[in-house]
Structure formats: C-alpha cells, structure tokens
C-alpha cells in the first residue's frame, strides 16, 4: 500500500499542476507544527501564504494538512525548546542547532531519526538534487560530506542539510578608509596596488597611527583593532580566536591554537600594541553594541583598516540599485556620500599564507531537527518529507512560500532573478518563509530554489567578482570536518585558555616567552587528547 502511495506521489509530481487534482489522496492528515527563527510572529490575519498553501496541498496532492507556525524567541530559543522537549510539547520541526547539539539531542533520544531510504522514498526529487551535488551539480565532490552531515554515527539521518557555497566563501573582507589612504598618498586604484605582504601592510598601519591621516593635528588614530589581529594570525597560517585543525607538514594535524608561528604573530602584535598602532581597546572589539557587523571604530575614524564585516555589509549602492549594504549605509551617513571604503587584498605572511578561515560548502543551515515523537508516527514524518518535495517541485507553491505574490511582494528581473520588496517583519507577518524547515533547511533544495535564493543574487555576484582578485579570495579550511569525540568535553576550557593567553601576551601582562608554557598547559588540559583524535580522524578520512 505504501509503495503504491509513493508511486502515486511520484506520478503526481511528474504531472503538470492541472492534472493533479484528480490524483489519489495521501491518507495521512493532521497538523504539523514548525518553529523556525522568526523575527516577529506570523499574523494569521495578514496571512497570504500559509492557508493558501494548505489549500493548494489539498487540491493538488490530496494532503489534508494544517500548518501551525510556532513563534519561539530567537535569543532564548535553545532554552525554550529544551523545556518543551522535556515537557513533550516540542513543535514537530524545530531548530536543533549545529552538529554538536544535534548529536547530543540524538543521543538523548530527543529528536527523530530515519533511514536514508525512507527519505529517498518520500522526497525523491530532493534526494536526487542533493545526491547530484546541488545546483547544477556544482558541488558533486561534497556529496559524501553531505550525507555524513545528515546522518548520525549509526547511519540514520537526523537532519536535512543543504549545499551552501556561501559558507565556503570568505565572509570577511579587509578594508581601508579611502580618505586616510588619500591623505597618506597611497594609491588604491585596484586591489593589486595595495599592500600584499605583511611587511608592507604593517608599515601602512604604522603610517595610519603616526602620520595623522585624519589631519586634525592630534595623535588620535590607530592602525587597526581586533579584526586585523585575526588577519595577522591568518598571515601566519593560524587563527586568533577559533580552533582549526591544520596540516603540520609532517603528515599529521596540529591545532591552530598551538602552532609554532603563533609566537611570531604574537610578537608582532605585541610590538604593534606597544607602539600604539593596535587600538588598546582591541580586546572589546570594534563594535560598540547594536548590530554586530557595524564596526564603529572604523566608521568613526579611530582605525584605518578593518576586516570586521563582509563585502556584503559594505555593498556599494550601485550593486543592487538600493542604498547599499547595512553597514555601508551607516558609513555614508557618518562620512558623507562622497566618502568611500577600499576593499583590499589580504596581507600574506612569511610563508605566503593569508586570510581568515572558511567553511565547507555543505551546511546544516540552522540545523532543523524533527521531534522524537515522529519516530512513532512514520506516516507523519513521511508527509513532512513529501511536503519538502512538493516545495522543491511545485514552482507555484515554492514562489508563494519564499517570495509571496508577484507584483506585490516581489518583482521578476530580466535575468529571471527576483527582487524582494518586503522587510523580514512584514514577510513573517504575511507568512512568507515561515514554513522554513518544512521546505528544507532555510532554502529550498531545488535548482530553481537555489538559483532564486543564491546563485541569481546580485550580492553574491558582487562577492564572487571581488574574490577573483589576487589574494582576496582563498582562505584556509579546518581540515577536520564534523566533531571530535572529546570536543565537547575540552573545547570551551581550551578556548578560554587560548583567548586569555593571547590577549595577555599582546598586552604584556605575560611575557612572550610564556608561550611555550601555554602550549604545555594546552596539551595537559585535554589538547593532547584532541590532537590524537584529530590525527585518527585524519588517518581515516584523508
């Protein structure tokens, strides 16, 4: 009977919309509750999406389903969801979180799991799209990684990830203040003429600090702050505030926390700090509150270089024909419409390394999980995946759910991409994208869905063009993908140790020579276990 249903469903999907009305109805019926991150509640009175979708599901696919959109506040999401899981009142589809959290939930029996075949059976189109490497098969090489991310250690799926090239793109961009470069007579016509070696870069930072680039006759400028500290660690092939597992050149892996070159980075930073080139307030970062990406120190002319935000945040108005990226808007409001910022290449260190770190193009998104009670109700779980497939194959339902109504909520551009008219609060209220989690992780897993959401987006093109420039794009990756067995036990303590030691050395409260002691302590406090596990992982997955 079930097989028949599946065949019927496949047939329905293959048929054009008008023929679907007479197809065999799906027998499961009921309510599916879903709780994505919402910036405001869904307003049933203003809804143009959720109820019409229910209607369409019924007319075309015989699926008698009611959607219940649950608003859970983002800032306390985990706490609230945990309480509801314990109380047996969790929504059917909710955000579990990253791989660590999902595996914890799975071990505790808090979320549902299913065989890959079950998914393939119920969401054949989505399965095929994913198994072929996503949009135009671009990420074929990462299909294995995809299934690894989707499945728990025992091979059962616990979530549906997606191919996300964005996480494999640099998310931060180095920038200079144009007015300061002009004041110092530094050419900046193209990224190629800007400093590309660490020495030239540091020399420029010194000039920012010492040559009064803002021309007010007071020595009140610095070269850089926290974000550039990260870039300098990057130039030494390491990381300032995250743990990367990197090849050690001898066939094994080493944590970036204890790389030998960190000492050189720290020595340089200590010098910058002592010479008044590094903002003494670097520890608290460049953002003074509010939206995290706004780097107040840079916008207000305290520092001359920053890589706190991305090229998207600093998108110039001409890219989209709007007011520009959110941080660019703040910039122009403070510095004037004729002022500008200069995108720059990363400074390369002694071994030619540069940039920060990037992820892999497979992502959990926000990591949707499915309530454990669905294990006892496989028909409902099947319906959830069938709905996922409908979103991927039924263009009308997809457009309605992701974009709203043409002309009112979005416009179609010449190249087939769409321009959205609404802000997220209005979208939430109208019901647009409130069923995320049902149509896949944040984005619809289909050619068309990915094109509209990502590949056809002008912001993305803007990025890709800039990354073409020499030393602007490639970053290093964490070699170990996924989670080391003891990571959750030692990670936070080792993070604290690293962060505190690095700051202490830069600000001079600990001598540079104490770096060796720190490495020893790092190893003693669990680092050696992690290193061993990382190398075991590497031996297996190389």
């Amino acid at each position: 009977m079930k097989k028949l249903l599946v065949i019927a469903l496949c047939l329905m999907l293959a048929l054009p919309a008008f023929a679907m009305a007479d197809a065999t109805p799906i027998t499961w019926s009921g309510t599916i509750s879903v709780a994505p991150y919402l910036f405001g509640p869904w307003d049933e009175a203003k809804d143009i999406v959720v109820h019409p979708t229910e209607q369409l599901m019924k007319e075309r696919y015989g699926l008698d389903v009611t959607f219940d959109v649950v608003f859970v506040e983002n800032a306390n999401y985990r706490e609230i969801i945990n309480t509801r899981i314990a109380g047996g009142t969790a929504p059917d589809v909710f955000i579990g979180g990253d791989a660590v959290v999902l595996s914890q939930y799975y071990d505790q029996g808090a979320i549902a799991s299913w065989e890959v075949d079950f998914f393939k059976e119920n969401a054949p189109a989505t399965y095929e799209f994913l198994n072929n490497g996503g949009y135009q098969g671009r990420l074929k090489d990462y299909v294995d990684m995809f299934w690894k991310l989707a499945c728990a250690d025992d091979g059962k799926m616990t979530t549906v990830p997606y191919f996300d090239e964005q996480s494999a793109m640099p998310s931060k961009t180095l920038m200079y203040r144009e007015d300061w470069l002009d004041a110092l007579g530094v050419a900046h016509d193209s990224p190629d003429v800007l400093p590309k070696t660490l020495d030239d870069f540091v020399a420029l930072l010194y000039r920012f600090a010492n040559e009064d680039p803002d021309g007010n006759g007071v020595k009140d400028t610095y070269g850089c702050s926290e974000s550039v500290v990260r870039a300098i660690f990057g130039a030494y092939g390491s990381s300032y505030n995250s743990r990367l597992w990197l090849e050690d050149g001898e066939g094994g892996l080493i944590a970036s926390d204890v790389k030998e070159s960190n000492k050189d980075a720290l020595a340089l930073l200590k010098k910058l700090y002592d010479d008044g080139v590094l903002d003494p307030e670097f520890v608290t970062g460049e953002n003074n509150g509010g939206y995290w990406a706004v780097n107040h120190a840079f916008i207000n002319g305290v520092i001359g270089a920053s890589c706190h935000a991305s090229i998207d945040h600093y998108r110039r108005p001409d890219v989209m024909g709007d007011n520009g990226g959110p941080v660019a808007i703040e910039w122009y409001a403070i510095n004037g419409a004729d002022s500008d910022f200069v995108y720059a290449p990363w400074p390369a260190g002694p071994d030619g390394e540069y940039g920060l770190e990037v992820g892999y193009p497979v992502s959990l998104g926000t990591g949707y999980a499915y309530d454990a009670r669905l294990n006892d109700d496989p028909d409902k779980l099947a319906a959830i995946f069938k709905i996922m497939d409908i979103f991927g194959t039924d263009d009308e339902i997809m457009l309605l759910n992701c974009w709203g109504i043409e002309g009112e909520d979005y416009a179609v551009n010449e190249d087939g991409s769409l321009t959205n008219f609404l802000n997220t609060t209005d979208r939430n209220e109208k019901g647009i994208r409130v069923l995320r989690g049902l149509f896949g992780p944040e984005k619809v897993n289909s050619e068309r869905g990915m094109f509209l959401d990502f590949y056809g987006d002008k912001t993305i093109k803007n990025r890709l063009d800039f990354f073409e420039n020499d030393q602007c794009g490639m970053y290093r990756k964490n070699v170990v993908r996924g989670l080391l067995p003891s990571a959750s036990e030692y990670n936070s303590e080792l993070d604290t140790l690293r962060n505190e030691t690095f700051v202490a050395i830069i600000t001079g409260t600990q001598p540079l020579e104490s770096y060796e002691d720190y490495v020893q302590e790092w190893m003693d406090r669990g680092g050696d276990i992690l290193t061993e596990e990382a190398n075991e992982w590497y031996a297996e997955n190389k």
Partner: protein
Amino acid sequence: MREKVSWADVLVHIILTLFIFSVVLTFVHMLVLSFSPGYVATKGGLHLWPEDPTLDNYAKVLKSKYIWLGYKNTILRTLVGTSLSLFITAMGAYALSKAYFPHRAYWTLLIVFTMFFSGGLIPNYLLVRDLGLLDTFASMILPGMVSAYNLVIMRNYFQSLPEEIEESCMIDGAGRFRTFISVVLPLSKPILATVALWLAVGHWNAWFDVLIYITDETRFTLQVVLRRILITGTQQMLESTQVQEMNDYLQASPEGLKGAAIFVATLPILCVYPFVQRYFVKGIMVGSLKG
C-alpha cells in the same frame, strides 16, 4: 537655627549627586537617541541634545500592533496579578502572624523552607503543563502568586500591630474576616503599598515565564515584544542567513527605534514610581524591624 553642615555631609551629597547623574545620563542619552535618526547612534559618543530631531521612531513603535497588544496584556497581568497576589499573601501572612495559630512554627518553617530551593525550569514547566495552564493567562499569575519573602515581610508587619485594636473591633461584633478587612488592612497600608509595588514591577518586567509558557503571540506581554525589538541583530547569526540578517537590520531595529521602544515601555512604570515611593521606604523599614 541653621544646622551645621559637616564635611562628611558635603562629601556624601557630592557622591550621591554624581551617582544620580550617572543614572540620569543614560536615560537622557537613550531619550535623545529615540528622537534621532539612526546614523546618530553609529557616530557613538554621548548624546545629550538631539541633532536632526525626528518623531519617526515613535511613529514606528506606536504603529506596531504587538506593542499595543503587549500593553493590554501587561496591564491586565499587572492589575490582576498584583491584586490577587496581594490579597492572598496578606491573608496568609495574617494567619501566620497570630501566636495562637495552631502549629504556627511548623507552617512558617514550611513556607520559609521554599525560599532556599527552586524546582528548576523544567519541573516548573512540567507542573504548569500538567495543571493545564500552558498558553493561558493564568500561567503568568498562578505559579508565582505567593512569594515566601513577601509573606514573611507582611507577617512581620502584622505582628507589630497591637492586638488590642483587633480585640476592640471584635467586641464591637466584627468577625475575623471583618476585622482583617476593616481594621488590619487599612492599618497596613505601608506594607501593602510596598509589596504591591514589588509585585507590580515584577509583573511589568516579567518576560521569561511568557516565553516559556505562552505560544500564542496575541498573549505576549510588552516586555517580550520589547526584547524582540532590542535584540534583533546584536548577535552574529549563522553565515547561511547573513543576507537575510542584513535585511533585518536594515529594516528592523536601528538604535533610535530601540530607544523609542524602551521609553514607550518604561514610561508608565516611571510615572507610578514617585507616588508609591514614600510607602516603599516606610514599609521596608517597618516590615523588617521586628523580623
């Protein structure tokens, strides 16, 4: 006759003035931001006078349906919650204040005992769920209706009332309840006002129980709506939603809007405070003296 002013007094006044200043400045700063367009906040620094004043922020905040719904819910919650809590607490405290109340020490101990423990979040949630209170107005009021601390403070105050007044009342023919309502409560205005203020401020500011127990947006209180406005975009979300997150920032909550929302939500309680304040100090003193 002029009082002698000692150096210590001057010093204390200076310190206190500075302290008041530090409190008031933040208010003024926020008030000014609420009347300013977004870019003023990005400039940083302290703002004591609006440049380019605008009412846009207030217009946006007051236009939001959820602010008004939140207001309604919060006011309802504060009124109902405070009066119920106050009445029940007072009755309990009155009973415990009587030396002839059977097993008084035992009952008092039982109540005080709860001050040292808390069931924790999840057991509380399970309790509320099993009582069938999830997603109801009662879940904001019943679980914390009687606080042991308030009860003890009130009991202490009642104990300080002379027994003879009540006796005279009973001689006139009043029963226990009548005595309590007509004599004890009117004599206890300071402590009632104090506890009422605590309760009211508590209800006005409460948000966590709403987040946990309530799923229906139309029951959300003002603080929950306010929090949502305030925290948007302050944390870096996953990269995968960066484009969306940027749009949110563009259109959702610049600093000025946050300032306006804060003032809209705080003003009522600020207005009530000065009038209840005199009871506040008095009540605390009297209630604690004979503890």
